[in-house]
Structure formats: structure tokens, C-alpha cells
């Protein structure tokens, strides 16, 4: 017991030392995330790219002195089966204790880890700019205990915004084609279940009829049950919500079972530019949601610059495989943080938080402004807010179809 106490004291001392002595030398930014996932890997690379660009321009000016950014990362493995929240937090704690970052960017992959990480951040008091975890409880915690959780900010899409944007997108299909019968197929995990529950309410209020809704356990490889019921229940739109690689089977099975519905939702394996080749064209007509710009850039200079710089730094093949969730906000997070530190003239957390709250800038994901609960505001016009995108696969190309402000064309129903 005595040894455990001594160890705990040592860790606390290291943490406190980290928080107070990080002002010396380079500014260290920590990236504790699930590096075994595409989202985690691409987000780390995007943050590193931003740091390199800032360093190439001389670094961040803090109190009249230019300081370079250094990114340090640790794999929390939180997306792997059987890894408990505790292990992911231990990895983050290790990084904070050993590397003494002045802030965290990217952060947790899973919502459960994100919510627990907020409590750790409340103790070490350093800014935490997350870009992947989507739980709505993130904002509830900040709204409930602002002083405790004010160090946390989110640049990535949140679950409520995802529901709203998906709802708008499907309504625009309804307006154009009169479709009103929807079937949900989703992964049996918290974020996907929450998204479908919210979306069901939004669509029902908009006059849609929900033909069916099925949850599949992670790793499922046969979707014939839902596809048969969707096909013979005359569903006009099939909404998949999955972030598991096995959902690639669903994409192929929709094609092989000849389901005559518009498939419009989120299937992570169908998002990259390389997916057409991977699925041998079986994804023709599929509408896929990109949580944030990045994999496909906006027409704005900042967004275009990000993807071009990414291709230059990591190769064209890496750009073509960019994930639809994480990279854009992660790139922006480093710039937003660096700018807040510069304006604060210090790395002192309270001062940086105050400046982060005043952020109003154009990034790769559109306009970046935080709401009162530290969530970047998402909307439909990139000059006014950050945006999500939807594209439709047509003849090997990803054509933007949502939001209207950036669309390259209209949705096309199957067989059109």
C-alpha cells in the first residue's frame, strides 16, 4: 500500500511538473489516440503536418519569443476489442506524465474514453482539443460544470450535428424525389444507435415512414435479413450507419441482392477515394457522408491547401485514403491552438482557454467558431460554420451532393 501511495505521489508530481515546466524550450503537444485506426493515424499525421507548417514559418510567438511545436503521440488502442477505458486512460496519463505536453490535440477515439479523459484533464488543467469522439455528453459536462471542464474543446463533428446534417440531407432527397420510406441498418454501438434514434425522430417529424431499423453486432458479415426486409418492404432509402471494416460486406450485398433503394448514410470503408477500386464499382450510386471536409476538400483556399500539403507530405496514395472523420479538424486544431497561445502570450491554461473561446477563423473544415459549450458550430455554409459533406459515387468519382452551398450536382436515385 505504501509503495502504491508513493507511486501515485510520484505520478502526480510528474503531472504537476509537466503542467508547470512545459514552458521551457519547444511547445509539446500530446496526441493520445487509437493509432491502430485509420481515423487515428490520419489525424496524427494531420496534426504533425500543421506543426511542421507552423515550425517552417518560424514557430509560435509566445511572449516575444518564437517557439517550435513538437508533437508526441501514444497509442491508446481504445478501438481494439477487449481494451477497457482504463487502459486507454493509462496511456494518456503516461504521455502527460512523461512528455509534459502544454496541450492535447486529437484525443479520444471512443466516446467512453473521451468522457473519462475530460476528468483527467480537469485535474492536469491543460487545453484538450478533441477531433474524433462524438458523444453529446461532452457538451453536457461542460455546461454542467464549466470551471471544471472548460479546458475541453471539440473541433470534430458531434453526434447531434451528425443527426441534424443527415436529416437535412435526407430531406433534400425527399424534396427532390418524393421518397418517404426509410430503412435503417446500423452498428450496435453507442454512437450509431444514438444517431439512428435521433434521426428516426427527425425523419418521422418530417413525414418519413420508418419501414424498419436493425442493429448489427460489430463484426457482422451477413446483412441479408435487413436487405430482404428493406427490398420487400419497398424502402426507398436505406440508411447505413457503420464505422466497422466489415460493413464492406453490406456494400457488396446491397449490390448482389439488387435492393432498389438509394443507399445514403455512413459506411467508413466506402469513404476513401480508393473505395471504387476496392469494391470493383459495386458502390455506384451510394451516397456517403463525410463527417468533416478533408478526404474531399472544400473549394476554400485553406481546405484546398490542407489536402495538397497532405499529399505533398505523405504521398498521393495517402491522400486518396484519407479518412472521412478526424483529419481536417485535427489539422485545424493545431492552428487554432497555436493562434490562441500566441494571442494569450503564454501557455498558461486559463489564458489559452480564454483565447480559444474567442476563436473565429477559416479552417480546412470551414469557419471555426466554438459555441458556449466548446463545440465547433456546424452548419450548411462553410463561410458561416464548419460543414459536413455528402458525396455520391458515380462512375468511379465522388461527386459532392450536400450541402447545397458546396454541391457539385444533385442526388441521383438508383437506375437514373
Amino acid at each position, binding site marked *: 500500500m505504501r509503495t502504491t501511495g508513493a507511486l501515485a505521489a510520484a505520478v502526480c508530481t510528474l503531472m504537476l511538473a509537466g503542467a508547470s515546466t512545459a514552458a521551457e524550450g519547444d511547445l509539446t503537444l500530446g496526441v493520445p489516440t487509437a493509432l*491502430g*485506426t*485509420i481515423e487515428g*493515424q490520419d489525424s496524427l499525421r494531420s496534426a504533425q503536418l500543421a506543426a511542421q507548417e507552423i515550425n517552417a514559418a518560424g514557430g509560435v510567438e509566445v511572449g516575444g519569443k518564437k517557439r517550435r511545436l513538437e508533437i508526441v503521440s501514444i497509442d491508446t488502442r481504445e478501438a*481494439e*476489442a477487449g481494451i477497457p477505458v482504463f487502459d486507454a486512460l493509462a496511456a494518456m496519463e503516461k504521455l502527460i506524465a512523461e512528455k509534459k505536453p502544454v496541450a492535447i490535440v486529437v484525443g479520444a477515439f471512443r466516446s467512453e474514453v473521451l468522457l473519462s479523459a475530460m476528468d483527467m484533464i480537469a485535474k492536469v488543467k491543460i487545453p484538450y482539443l478533441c477531433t474524433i469522439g462524438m458523444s453529446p455528453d461532452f457538451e453536457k459536462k461542460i455546461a454542467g460544470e464549466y470551471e471544471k471542464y472548460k479546458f475541453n474543446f471539440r473541433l470534430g463533428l458531434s453526434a447531434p450535428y451528425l443527426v441534424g446534417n443527415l436529416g437535412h440531407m435526407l430531406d433534400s432527397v425527399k424534396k427532390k424525389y418524393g421518397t418517404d420510406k426509410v430503412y435503417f441498418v446500423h452498428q*450496435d454501438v453507442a454512437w450509431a444507435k444514438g444517431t439512428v434514434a435521433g434521426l428516426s425522430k427527425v425523419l418521422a417529424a418530417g413525414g418519413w415512414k420508418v419501414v424498419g431499423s*436493425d*442493429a*448489427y*453486432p460489430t*463484426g*457482422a*458479415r*451477413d*446483412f*441479408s*435479413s*435487413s436487405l*430482404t*426486409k428493406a427490398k*420487400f418492404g419497398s424502402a426507398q432509402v436505406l440508411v447505413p450507419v457503420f464505422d*466497422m*471494416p*466489415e460493413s*464492406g*460486406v453490406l456494400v*457488396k*450485398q446491397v449490390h*448482389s*441482392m*439488387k435492393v432498389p433503394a438509394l443507399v445514403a448514410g455512413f459506411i*467508413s*470503408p466506402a*469513404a*476513401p477515394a*480508393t*473505395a471504387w*477500386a*476496392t*469494391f*470493383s464499382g459495386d458502390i455506384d450510386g451510394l451516397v456517403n457522408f463525410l463527417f468533416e471536409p478533408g478526404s474531399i476538400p472544400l473549394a476554400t483556399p485553406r481546405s484546398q491547401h490542407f489536402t495538397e500539403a497532405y499529399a505533398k507530405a505523405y504521398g498521393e496514395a495517402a491522400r486518396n*485514403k484519407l479518412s472521412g472523420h478526424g483529419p481536417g479538424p485535427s489539422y485545424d486544431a493545431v492552428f487554432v491552438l497555436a493562434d490562441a497561445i500566441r494571442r494569450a502570450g503564454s501557455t498558461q491554461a486559463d489564458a489559452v482557454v480564454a483565447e480559444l473561446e474567442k476563436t473565429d477563423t477559416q479552417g480546412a473544415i470551414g469557419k471555426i467558431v466554438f459555441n458556449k459549450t466548446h463545440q465547433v458550430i456546424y452548419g450548411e455554409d462553410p463561410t458561416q460554420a464548419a460543414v459536413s459533406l455528402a458525396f455520391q459515387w458515380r462512375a468511379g468519382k465522388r461527386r459532392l451532393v450536400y450541402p447545397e452551398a458546396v454541391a457539385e450536382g444533385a442526388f441521383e436515385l438508383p437506375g437514373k
Partner: protein
Amino acid sequence: MKVLIVSTLIYGLVQGATLMLTALGFSLTFGLSGVANFAHGGLYLLSGFLAWALVNRLGMPFPLAAAATVLLVALLGAAVYRLVLRPVRGITLSEVISTFALGVALIEGFRWRGFTTYDFSLPPFWPGEVEIAGVSVDRQRLAIVGAGFLLPLALWAFTHHTRVGLALRGMAQDETTALAMGIDSDWAATLSLSLGAGLAAVAAVLLLPLGIISINTGYEVLLVALAVTVLGGLESTAGMIVGSLLIGFAVVITGNFVGPHLSEVVYLGALVLVLGLKPSGLLGRSKEIEERV
């Protein structure tokens, strides 16, 4: 309703055949040599990436790449016995730990080397779809059903009607007598590991074209193989076939008439129920023999 019943029959059969192919290599190796090859999932995943590399890096036609993959992985299975298992042969716990470690090393090695993107897919052997009583099904799934039923039959013929197969069975039934008859124990175990690994590769090249190759498949395949083999009866290939069909149909019936989210509950529930009623599995006899002794 008629369409849903037809769909249940077709996809239940497909699901059963899928489970059968997934577990066949594991079941065969255990039945012939008594070795529970916990590297089965790792070998399955390796086969998928190897076939992908042969097609996409060396430009081989897929059927040729698939055949080469089966051959190479079968050779690797033999090497696994010689290098990993022989030193610990007979120490069951060490056999399990060493094969499990090898499987984890293979799977995590791929993760470490960045095989986590969504780019890895294999083409089907038999592209296109057919319609059966109003239900559309792709030909690759029909090929899986065919292979799922033909392969166990071929293996049954091999182990019952060839000298090599009879020798392997003899070794499985009574090692001392088999040794007295001049059958080399190491040779038999090497061959059974090789056959099991080759069958893992056959499953990979048949099943992976349905989707994309993902790292966690390695773990899932091992769990499915274990569950199906235990359900059917550890040393019984016939039990494994019956168990696969039982679980396959249970999963599809649950998905069609209750909800797919309960399919895993049904599948694990079936496992618990069968083992509760019949501890040796559906057609296994190990517990009964042990009790009789």
C-alpha cells in the same frame, strides 16, 4: 412472407457453410493430432493478405494466387509444427500458449505494419448473381455453399479411404499402437497442421471476397472456429458440420424474424445450451468415454 422464408433457407445455408469453412481447418487439426491450433485466425488473415499481395503486387490471376496461397500457407503450417510445436509436443498448455502467441503475433504484426486501411479486397471466384424463387444471391455465396459441403466430404474420403488418411486416423485414435505399426508421430502431426493451415487459407480465399480484409477478422475467425468445433464435439467433423448448420440457421432465423442484434445472443446461447445438455458437444464422445473409463 414466402420471400422471407426462401431468404432464410438460402442465407441460413450460406451462413452454415461459412461457419463450416471457417472451422474446418481447426477441427481437422485437432481431430487428427489433438493440437488446438490457436494460430488458426492468424493464418486465415495471413492467407487473405498473401492472396491480395499475389494479385495486386505480382499481378497473378486470382485463381492462381488463391492456389499458391493455399500451398504456401499449408507449408507454413508444417513449419509451425516443426519450429513451434514439436519442442512442446504433449504439453497441452504449452501447445495452446505457443500457437496463440503465434496467432497474436501474426495479427498484431499486420496491424503494426499498417494493414489497417480499407484497401484490401479479393475478387470473387464466380462474379454475378442468380435469382432463386425471387431472392437474389451472388454466385460467390453459392460457391461457398458448394465448398462448405464438398470439402468435408472430400476430407472424409481422404481420412477413410487413403493410406495416408488411415495412418493419420490411426495416430489420432491410438498413438502407441500407431507407432508400433511404423507410423511416425511427428510426420502425422506435421501433416495435420499443414492440412489445417491449408484449409484456413481455403476459407480465406473463399470468404474474404464477400467484403474487405480487416485485422480483427483474425480474432473473430478463431472464436468462431472454437465455438463451432466445441459445439459439434471436439474430435467430430460430422458434429462440426451439424453445429455449423445449427448456428447458421439460428442466426439467420433470429435476424429475419426477431432482430439481427440478438443473433450473437442466440449463437452463444445455443453453445451454452448444447454443452449443458451434452458436455462433449453434439456428436462428440470424449466426456462419455472419460466417464466410462
